[in-house]
């Protein structure tokens, strides 16, 4: 539920810049300020070569990185949100949806796909933060639920890549119940002894953390990702003092026992594929 703050901080700029910037331009690392050519940066999987800062990426990039030869079959690609509550804040929800679809080229905050990873079947549901802060609405819940059904049918391993500010407030109660829906579906996946890998990336907060992101047979994360239930601002207000260094980072969660391992993007495919092999051999 902290998505709009994040948007304001300009974290969504990377994909947009890429689209609007002609080849051969420069990328400046927001962390260490080192400058790379856009091509160098892309070839390095959007990771800074100097300080290892992992830039936020979306479903398009993750599918390319993970699936063999970048090939996959997308599932339920056309599902879009309704407006069940006729919701309007400073903007009508339907207008917000329309402009987000236009600006991002996405249909909602998750894309689901079936492909192979080192020859093994894998269904991935990958969230896109650019779409209303990766917020969890009916479409996200429904697409993940259907992807789980698909994994069961195809006896494939299943993975969710979480990247979300939490609930989609414009769907209120419907949004909340998606947490229950996906959790129920994960139970059915478990009955078929198919592995579920939860991959947490920056940021994973709110209702996503309080449901499927924390329910993996293994939970893994990218380095230095923000992961938490309450957003850092809320926690800070609650305790009335500064938060300790590194609070709610991947490393913090690993130390407190909530992650199985942290993996750099360069090793993601290799490690993930190995995990799946260990579950299934």
């Amino acid at each position, binding site marked *: 539920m902290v998505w709009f703050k994040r948007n304001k901080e300009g974290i969504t700029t990377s994909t947009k810049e890429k689209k609007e910037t002609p080849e051969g331009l420069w990328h400046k690392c927001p962390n260490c300020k080192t400058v790379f050519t856009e091509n160098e940066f892309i070839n390095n999987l959007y990771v800074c070569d100097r300080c290892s800062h992992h830039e936020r990426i979306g479903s398009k990039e993750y599918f390319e990185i993970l699936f063999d030869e970048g090939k996959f079959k997308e599932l339920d690609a056309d599902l879009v949100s309704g407006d069940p509550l006729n919701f309007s804040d400073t903007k009508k929800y339907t207008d917000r949806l329309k402009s987000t679809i236009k600006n991002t080229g996405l249909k909602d905050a998750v894309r689901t796909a079936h492909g192979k990873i080192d020859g093994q079947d894998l269904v991935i549901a990958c969230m896109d933060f650019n779409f209303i802060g990766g917020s969890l609405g009916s479409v996200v819940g*429904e697409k993940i*639920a259907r992807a789980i059904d698909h994994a069961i049918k195809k006896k494939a391993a299943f993975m969710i890549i979480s990247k979300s500010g939490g*609930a989609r407030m414009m769907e*209120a109660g419907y949004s909340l119940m998606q947490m*229950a829906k996906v959790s129920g579906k994960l139970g059915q996946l478990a009955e078929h002894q198919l592995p579920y890998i939860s991959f947490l990336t920056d940021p994973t907060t709110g209702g996503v953390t309080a449901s499927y992101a924390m329910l993996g047979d293994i939970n893994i994360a990218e380095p230095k990702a923000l992961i938490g*239930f309450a957003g850092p601002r809320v926690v800070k207000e609650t305790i009335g003092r500064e938060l300790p260094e590194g609070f709610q980072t991947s490393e913090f969660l690993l130390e407190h026992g909530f992650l199985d391992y942290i993996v750099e993007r360069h090793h993601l495919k290799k490690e993930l594929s190995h995990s799946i092999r260990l579950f299934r051999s």
Partner: protein
Amino acid sequence: MATYLEFEAPIQELEEQILKAKEIALTTEVSMEDTIKELEDKLVQKTTDIFSNLTPWQRVQLSRHPDRPYTLAYIDALTGGTFQELHGDRNVKDDKAMIGGFGLLDGQSVMFIGQQKGINTKMRQYRNFGMANPEGYRKALRLMKLAEKFNKPIVTLIDTPGAFPGLEAEERGQGEAIARNIYEMMRLKVPVICIVIGEGASGGALGIGVGDKVVMLENTWYSVISPESCSSILWRSWEYKETAASALKLTSKDMKKNKLVDDVIPEPVGGAHRNPQENFENVKKYIIKALAELKKTDPKKRIDDRIEKFCEMGVWK
């Protein structure tokens, strides 16, 4: 002394007039019978009028009414004093914001679990305002598993402004604790009834809110966020809480209409706190009837139905 909300002012006025009239009747020879009768009729009429036209924000206020009964009061009334509280998550500590234990309802042992708010300033702090930490959710799960082991039904009573957003809560995995409960509750082999008796705020409520019957008392709210927080995030100001309360469709009537809860339990005119006994009776009747119905289904089918119900929630094109 009763507490009155702003929109209850006309009720307060009439009740004070009635009291005064009764005092006069007691201390003087003047017959006040007709006056009292007239005022009492007026009071019933006025209360009915006000309460049949409540705005969503007024319902939210009612759900937080300081005189409203909290979880333990329900359990005491439902079990006739047979409730035995059980403590601790067997891991970190005993969370005072989440209570639970077995009690006899209509002669049958039932596991009761719920968030507990405090009845005065000191107790509110002791109960952490009904905001549970991870150990509260883990205690709840331990007790649910205990009920499952002995094949006893579970009733949860939901009344929370949210799961506690503290530093230690994050360290101990608030997200994981709630997620685990949601996941496990989906698969419990015994009947589960969840009743929102006050505030049903987001994941903190859902953490004990997955059941075969999820129901709301008439004057409660249940949503993904409180109207105040929604106002501050979407309108970037605290001033839009009334607008947010309407927009979120968080009342029992709207939640039922949108098929996000199964039933609404009516409250006595004026709210649960105006006639707690009648209110507890309504709740008791509902639970007994629902349990009898749920017991007819076999556990496997009950779990499938439960998952299916939540899977049908949502709107897409």
